[in-house]
């Protein structure tokens, strides 16, 4: 009897060790491709990166050299349009959810819709904007690409803004209201201001996310081999250029694709680390 009990105990201990081992194995298996991706990216990208990458525009197909200067500028233009559209609307939506509509059924429905919109594939966003703008105007344009990216920013910015505002202690709002400040004023210059570092990092996160989007640009911004900052013309973009070069048959274009990927990742890692840094040391200025 006692022996059987011991056996069962041993079996339980063994199961425990096996489960622990499997969890550790899973973690290693997950970390391995990440390290492989980053390592390979840095190895390939760093050896391909040079000054010409940042200063020259693409060479004609098959020729060696050239850079992605126009794509970098193009991405900046697209992201500028996207931010102008996405950030104000997103912050406004977040303020409504956290301050004016808190707890109402409408706010809950909007929050749910925002989360669902976040999961809509970016390629679907691309064809919707194509039908809405490109198809009506009869030409591809930087403007339509910017709008597509901007719309994709809205749900992310809305939700992070809301979360940041909800972290502002109630006593701060009450103090403002107690001094006789109208509610809208208190929201804008007290609550929003207190949460501003968090809100800004949220915007950066959304920015970083759409900076790497390719699918919605395929049939809106289209891409461009030449210099262009005209909102009414097709424009080049970094992720788009990486895609075009990746599927091209030329080795030198593959090299440029790796360099572009490294630049893109560097930008995104920078944004994510910044977000973590700010979030880690307390989001709220003077609130705690």
């Amino acid at each position, binding site marked *: 009897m006692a022996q059987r009990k011991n056996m069962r105990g041993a079996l339980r201990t063994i199961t425990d060790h096996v489960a622990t081992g499997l969890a550790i194995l899973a973690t290693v298996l997950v970390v391995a491709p*990440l390290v492989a991706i980053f390592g390979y990216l840095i190895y390939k990208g760093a050896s391909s990166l040079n000054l010409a990458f940042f200063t020259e525009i693409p060479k004609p197909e098959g020729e060696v050299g050239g850079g992605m200067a126009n794509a970098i500028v193009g991405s900046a233009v697209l992201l500028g349009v996207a931010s102008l559209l996405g950030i104000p609307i997103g912050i406004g939506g977040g303020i*409504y959810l956290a301050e004016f509509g808190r707890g109402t059924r409408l706010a809950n429905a909007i929050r749910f819709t925002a989360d669902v919109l976040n999961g809509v594939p970016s390629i679907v966003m691309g064809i919707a904007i194509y039908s809405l703008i490109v198809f009506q105007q009869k030409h591809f344009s930087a403007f339509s690409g910017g709008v597509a990216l901007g719309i994709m920013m809205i749900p992310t910015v809305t939700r992070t803004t809301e979360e940041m505002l909800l972290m502002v202690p109630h006593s701060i709002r009450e103090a403002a209201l107690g001094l006789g400040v109208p509610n809208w004023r208190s929201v804008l210059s007290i609550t929003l201001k207190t949460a501003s570092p968090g809100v800004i990092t949220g915007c950066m996160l959304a920015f970083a996310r759409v*900076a790497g989007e390719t699918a919605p640009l395929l049939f809106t911004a289209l891409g461009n081999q030449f210099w262009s900052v005209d909102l009414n013309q097709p424009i080049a973009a970094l992720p788009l250029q990486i895609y075009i070069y*990746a599927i091209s048959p030329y080795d030198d274009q593959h090299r440029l694709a790796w360099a572009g990927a490294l630049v893109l990742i560097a930008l*995104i890692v920078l944004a994510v680390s910044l977000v973590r840094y700010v*979030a880690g040391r307390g989001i709220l200025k003077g609130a705690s």
Partner: protein
Amino acid sequence: MLACAASIFAIVVLIATELVLQSQQSWHKFGLPFFYKFNVDPDTHLPLFWDPVNGTFYALPFLYGTLVSSLLALLIAVPLAIGVAVFLTEMCPGFLRGPLSFLTELLAAIPSVVYGLWAMFVLVPLLREHINPFFIGIFGAPSMVRLFGWTGLVGDDGLFGGVNLGLGLLAAGVILAIMILPIIASLTREVMSAVPNAQREAVLALGATRWEMIRVGVLRNARIGIVGSIILGLGRALGETMAVAMVIGNSAEIHKSLLSTGHSMASVIANEFSEATSDMHRSALIEIGLALFLVTILVNGLARLLVWAVTRGTPVRAN
């Protein structure tokens, strides 16, 4: 402020109406059979699904490609993701937790096109040279064929039959798994941390080992949320475009073999939309987009409801 918030509704409605309007032409011509029928080639007697030049548009191979690659991705990613979440919440020494969760966050932030680039130049050769031959060896072994030949899954026309290009459904499934892993892992971690500590303590106090505590006290309580996060990962996999388009091989055919090339709903849009040969072609592609839109809305809505059902009531956190 209300207008800003309401614009989110407006966007969803606008996308839906625009997709419905633009896909009318194909809907009127093909109707519902668009998603399940096909023509038969009179010469070769092979099924003919998608032939823009002759105006044949049936979407079955894209549904198949999306479904198979997404399910493969779940099959690979779910056990790993749950393992990582268990490790991070219950076993991980404190000094590792920060860097590891940062890594998973980074993994989630890498753009699709960069995953695609890596998959094209690293993963596909790796599959072609090492991993696929291994599976072909197992599935093609004479004893396997003798024992399991009746299932139709082994041998030359089985799951690992046909030409080994490296590109194909398996490559798409693997890269999708790598991409949805961090999403499932971080959400699972979140629902697992939402389980109150009292549960853990109660189970441990009854003399359970750590694994029994995790199984009975944590996983069982968090299971709805875990299912929710898996469905959310599925939603991401269904709509993933660039990485899949770069490795799936782009052919509108249906084959049983995982090594065969295919096409997913998103990848066919990415590949053909800007060069659509006719209005009907474009309309058919938009109808595929509409289907994708509806499916992802359903899947994401369901997942959100499940995740909320579990994490509701826990305080809002920074990220």
